[in-house]
C-alpha cells in the first residue's frame, strides 16, 4: 500500500515539475505582452496630453461663462423678488380695505336682519328675510350686483318703516284660527285688522291678535282708521314697537285688584253692599214718610191717621180740652212710638261706615305681616316677592275707604232727614197744631 502511495507521489511530483516549466514560459510570454501594451498606452497617453490640455482650457472658459450668467440671473431674481414683495404689500393694503368692507356688510346685514325680524314689515315682505340671511351667513365675497340689491332692500325697508300701508297677511286670532285678512300697518309701530290690534311673533313668523286689547275707544278708532281714505284721524300707536302693548297684559284689571284684597277685601265688599242696600231702603222709606208728613202739614186739621203727624194730630184734637201738661204727656207718648219707628236702623249704617275703614286697616296690617314674612324668608332683594302682601294691604285700605265714603254720605242723609222728621213731630207738634187751631177759629 505504501509503495503505491509513494509511487503515486513520485508520479505527481514529476508531473508538477513538468507543469512549472510550462508556467514560467507562460508568464514570460504574458509579461512581454503586457510591457508591450504598456508601452503602447504610454505612447498613446503622451499623444493625448496635448489634447487634454486644450480640453481643460476650454472647460475652464465655459465655467467662467456659466458663472457670469449665474450672477446675472441672481441679480435678476433679487430684483424680481423685491418687486414681488412690493406688489404683495400693495395687495395686502388693498385686500385689507376690501375685507373690512365685506365684514361690515355681513355685520350690517345681521343687525338689520334681527331688527327686521321683529317688525311688522316682515309680515308684509317675507321674501326680504332671505336676502338678509344670505348676506349675514355667506363666507364668499358678494358681487357688486348683490351689494346693490342689499343696499336697495335696506333703503326700501327704511321707506316702508315710514309708511302706512294695507296688505293681505295671515293673522292668528285669539282662538287659534289662521286667516288671511287685510292688515293696516302704521310704520313699525302698530298694525291692526278689523279693529283688533296685532303683534308680530318672530317664533312663528306671523301676526297674532293681542290677547289683551286696548280699550274699546281705541279699537273703534282703529276700525275707523282702516275704513278711512286720505283723512286725518287719530289713532293709538305703540312707539316702543309692541313692548307697551305686551305690558298691557301684565297690568292688573279691576277684578284682579279686587282679588288681591283677599278675604278681608271680600268681607269689606260684602258689608259695603249690604250697607248700601240698607241705606237705599232707608232713604226711600224716610222720604215716603217725609212727603206724607209734608202733605199733612199743609192741611193739618184734616188729619189722616195713616201717617205719623196725622196720628199726633188725632191725639191732640181728641184731648184738646185737657190741661197743657196733660196734653204734652199724651202727645209725647205718641211721638216716642213714631220716633222709634223712624230712627230704627239708622245706627246700623253708621256702624258700617265706621267699621269698613277699620277692616281696611286690618287688611293693611295682615298684608304687612305677609310682607314681613316674605322679607324674613327671602330678604329684601326682590321687591316682587313682597308685592303680594303689599297689594293686599293697599287694596283693602282702598276698599275700606271706597265703601266708607258713600256710606258716610248715606248716613248723613238718613240722620238729617230723620232728625228733620223727628223735630217736626217732637218739638213743633203742639205749637204747630195750636197755631193752626187758632187760625181756624
Amino acid at each position, binding site marked *: 500500500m505504501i509503495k503505491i502511495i509513494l509511487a503515486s507521489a513520485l508520479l505527481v511530483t514529476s508531473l508538477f515539475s513538468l507543469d512549472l516549466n510550462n508556467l514560467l514560459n507562460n508568464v514570460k510570454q504574458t509579461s512581454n505582452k503586457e510591457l508591450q501594451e504598456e508601452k503602447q498606452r504610454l505612447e498613446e497617453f503622451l499623444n493625448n496630453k496635448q489634447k487634454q490640455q486644450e480640453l481643460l482650457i476650454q472647460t475652464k472658459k465655459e465655467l467662467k461663462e456659466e458663472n457670469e450668467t449665474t450672477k446675472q440671473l441672481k441679480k435678476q431674481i433679487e430684483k424680481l423678488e423685491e418687486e414681488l414683495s412690493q406688489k404683495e404689500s400693495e395687495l395686502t393694503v388693498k385686500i385689507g380695505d376690501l375685507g373690512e368692507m365685506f365684514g361690515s356688510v355681513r355685520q350690517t346685514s345681521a343687525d338689520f336682519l334681527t331688527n327686521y325680524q321683529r317688525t311688522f314689515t316682515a309680515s308684509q315682505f317675507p321674501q326680504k328675510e332671505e336676502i338678509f340671511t344670505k348676506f349675514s351667513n355667506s363666507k364668499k365675497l358678494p358681487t357688486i350686483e348683490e351689494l346693490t340689491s342689499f343696499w336697495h332692500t335696506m333703503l326700501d325697508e327704511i321707506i316702508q318703516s315710514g309708511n302706512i300701508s294695507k296688505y293681505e297677511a295671515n293673522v292668528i286670532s285669539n282662538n287659534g284660527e289662521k286667516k288671511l285678512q287685510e292688515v293696516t300697518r302704521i310704520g313699525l309701530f302698530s298694525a291692526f285688522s278689523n279693529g283688533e290690534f296685532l303683534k308680530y311673533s318672530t317664533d312663528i313668523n306671523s301676526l297674532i291678535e293681542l290677547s289683551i286689547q286696548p280699550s274699546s275707544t281705541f279699537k273703534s278708532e282703529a276700525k275707523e282708521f282702516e275704513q278711512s281714505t286720505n283723512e286725518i284721524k287719530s289713532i293709538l300707536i305703540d312707539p316702543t314697537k309692541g313692548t307697551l302693548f305686551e*305690558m298691557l297684559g*301684565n*297690568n*292688573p284689571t279691576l277684578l284682579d*285688584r279686587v282679588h288681591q284684597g283677599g278675604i278681608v277685601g271680600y268681607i269689606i265688599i260684602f258689608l259695603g253692599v249690604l250697607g248700601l242696600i240698607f241705606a237705599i231702603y232707608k232713604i226711600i222709606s224716610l222720604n215716603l214718610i217725609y212727603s206724607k208728613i209734608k202733605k199733612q202739614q199743609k192741611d193739618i186739621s184734616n188729619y189722616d191717621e195713616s201717617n205719623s203727624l196725622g196720628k199726633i194730630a188725632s191725639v191732640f184734637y181728641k184731648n184738646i180740652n185737657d190741661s*197743657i201738661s196733660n196734653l204734652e204727656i199724651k202727645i209725647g207718648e205718641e211721638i216716642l212710638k213714631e220716633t222709634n219707628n223712624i230712627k230704627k236702623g239708622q245706627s246700623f249704617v253708621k256702624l258700617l261706615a265706621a267699621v269698613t*275703614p277699620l277692616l281696611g286697616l286690618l287688611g293693611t296690617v295682615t298684608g304687612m305681616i305677609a310682607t314681613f314674612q316674605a322679607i324674613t324668608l327671602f330678604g329684601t332683594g326682590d*321687591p*316682587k316677592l313682597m*308685592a303680594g302682601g*303689599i*297689594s293686599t294691604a*293697599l*287694596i283693602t*285700605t*282702598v276698599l275700606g*275707604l*271706597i265703601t*266708607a*265714603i258713600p256710606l*258716610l*254720605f248715606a248716613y*248723613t*242723609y238718613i*240722620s*238729617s232727614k230723620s*232728625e*228733620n222728621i223727628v*223735630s217736626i213731630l217732637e*218739638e*213743633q207738634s*203742639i*205749637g*204747630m197744631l*195750636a*197755631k193752626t*187751631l*187758632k*187760625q181756624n177759629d
Partner: protein
Amino acid sequence: MIDIYLDNLFGFFDKGGFVLYIVFGIALFLWTLLIERYIYISFEYKKYKNSLINELKEASFSKKFKEEIKKYLIEDSNIKLKSGLSFIKTLIIVCPLVGLLGTVTGMIEVFDVMAINGTSNVKSMANGVSMATIPTMAGMVVALSGILFEKKLELSIKYHTDKLYLEISKVL
C-alpha cells in the same frame, strides 16, 4: 301770564291723578254750599224774619199755647237756617278720607312700577309718589278751610236763633 298759571294748574292736576279731581269736586261742592248758606243768612233770612214778625203782630193766639207756638216758630226757622249744614259737615269729614284714598292709590301705582322696573329706577316711582301726596295735602287743605267757615256759620246761626227768640217774645 294767565297761560303760565293755567299750565301750572293743569300740571298740578296731572300729577295728582284722578283722586285730586274728586277732592276738587268736593271742595267746589263744599264752598258752593257754604256760600249759599252765607247768602241765605244775610238776605233771604231777613226777609223771612220780617214777614214772620209782621204776621205775628196781626194774629192772635190763645194764651194756653203761647209758649209752644214760640218754640215752634223758633225751631222752624232754625231748621231753615241749618238745612244743608250736616251735609257740609259730612263733606268736611270725607275730604281727608278721599285724600287718604289718594295716598293709597298712589302707593299702589308706586308698587306697580316697582313690580315691573324694580327698585333701581327712582324716577319712575316719582309719579306714583306725587299721586299719593298731592291729593292728601289737597284733602287736608280743603277740610281745614271748610272747618273754619263751618264753625263760624254755626255760631252765626246760634246768634240769629237767639235774636229771633227775643224779637218774637217782644211781639207775642
